[in-house]
């Protein structure tokens, strides 16, 4: 009797764990299929017949990165990339100032007040910060990035490093996987990178998180064939 009960228990637990394994396998398969589809679809053009303006997130990376980004913005038709949200690191005071200057030149040209917002974002780790406190600040930074992304839900992300753009690109990718918001991420590797990609660039390239990946030197394109060589921006 006791033996029989044991046997039944065994049978039940065995079948229960089988069911778990079955469901987990299906769930993993579905996630893999969805992620593969998102990666495949992201590499293809949008094919819109009458394109509407797209909400655009512009991540300013400070110093030379910001200068390159503003160079790019100056040749884009800003009315197609509307509204625009500029994001810079909380420690970087110059970049948003430069972006405001750029936006006022756009207003001067078109005579209309364009829809532009400016925001600062926490950085996961400052130079010289201890690793223990950086766990807390990293969580803060991710939460802040998530909140900004939920609020703005951009359709286009323009970024060119360094690390500030990484959490935003990762969140945008998850939004695509979960079907919350489809977006196109464009990453331009900095002109300072001639032979090797930056860590941010390498991650976005390897994880297929940039829909189009641009490099400014032919050596890099030979090394990373999915990248597009576009010549120097400066």
């Amino acid at each position, binding site marked *: 009797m006791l033996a029989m009960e044991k046997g039944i228990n065994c049978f039940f637990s065995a079948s229960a764990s089988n069911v778990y394994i079955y469901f987990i396998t299906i769930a993993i398969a579905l996630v893999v299929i969805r992620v593969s589809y998102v990666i495949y679809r992201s590499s293809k*053009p*949008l*094919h*819109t*017949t009458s*394109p509407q303006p*797209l909400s655009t997130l512009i991540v300013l990376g400070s*110093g*030379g990165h910001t*200068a*390159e980004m503003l*160079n*790019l913005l*100056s*040749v*884009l*038709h800003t009315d*197609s990339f509307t509204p625009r949200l500029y994001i810079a690191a909380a420690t970087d005071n110059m970049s948003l100032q430069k972006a405001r200057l750029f936006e006022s030149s756009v207003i001067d040209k078109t005579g209309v007040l364009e829809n532009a917002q400016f925001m600062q974002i926490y950085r996961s780790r400052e130079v010289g910060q201890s690793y223990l406190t950086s766990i807390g600040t990293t969580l803060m930074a991710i939460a802040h990035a998530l909140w900004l992304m939920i609020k703005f839900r951009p359709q*286009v992300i*323009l970024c060119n490093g360094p690390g500030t753009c990484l959490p935003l690109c990762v969140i945008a990718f998850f939004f695509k996987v979960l079907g919350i918001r489809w977006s*196109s991420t*464009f990453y*331009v590797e*900095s*002109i*300072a*990178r*001639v*032979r*090797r990609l*930056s860590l941010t660039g390498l991650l976005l390239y390897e994880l297929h998180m940039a*829909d*189009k990946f*641009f490099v*400014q*030197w032919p050596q890099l394109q030979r090394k990373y064939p999915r990248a*597009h060589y*576009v*010549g*120097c*921006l*400066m």
Partner: protein
Amino acid sequence: MGDTHDDMKPKRIVFVTVGTTSFDALVKAVDNTEVKRELFGRGYTHLLIQMGRGSYIPSKSSGEDGCLAVDYFTFSSTIADNLRSASLVISHAGSGSIFETLRLRKPLIVVVNEDLMDNHQSELAEELADRKHLFCASPQTLLHTITSMSLERLIPYHPGDAKPVAKLINQFLGFPDD
């Protein structure tokens, strides 16, 4: 007689910039007696150093006794005017000041900071030096670079633009491109 000759001599400024951080090795390297003598010998009259957060203070000189006049400052909101009035620029390897200088068509020596952990900045300076747009040195080789350089061998840099990127982005998103 000598004084009037000095007054007639055009002002030729060497501008040194370390950027937003500190680069004492570069400031020390240009403050070197031999470097200053060589610069003076090449017809430069003034040496102006933007020294940033560095702790090494270069020795000031009014330049009256037949040598280079030396002056320094820590930061300035813009170095555009300094670059414009310079006849030679010696800069750290940041892309911002490199391209700002090249766009003004000023002869440029880029000094790479070998103390930086992630020294990717030397990549850009070396590439542009290979293309003969500038000279690339380290604090140790600066004197040698100055003595051996011939400025007429430099090739002017033609600034690039972002139109190819913009074109690809527009194509991808289905925006008209012109």
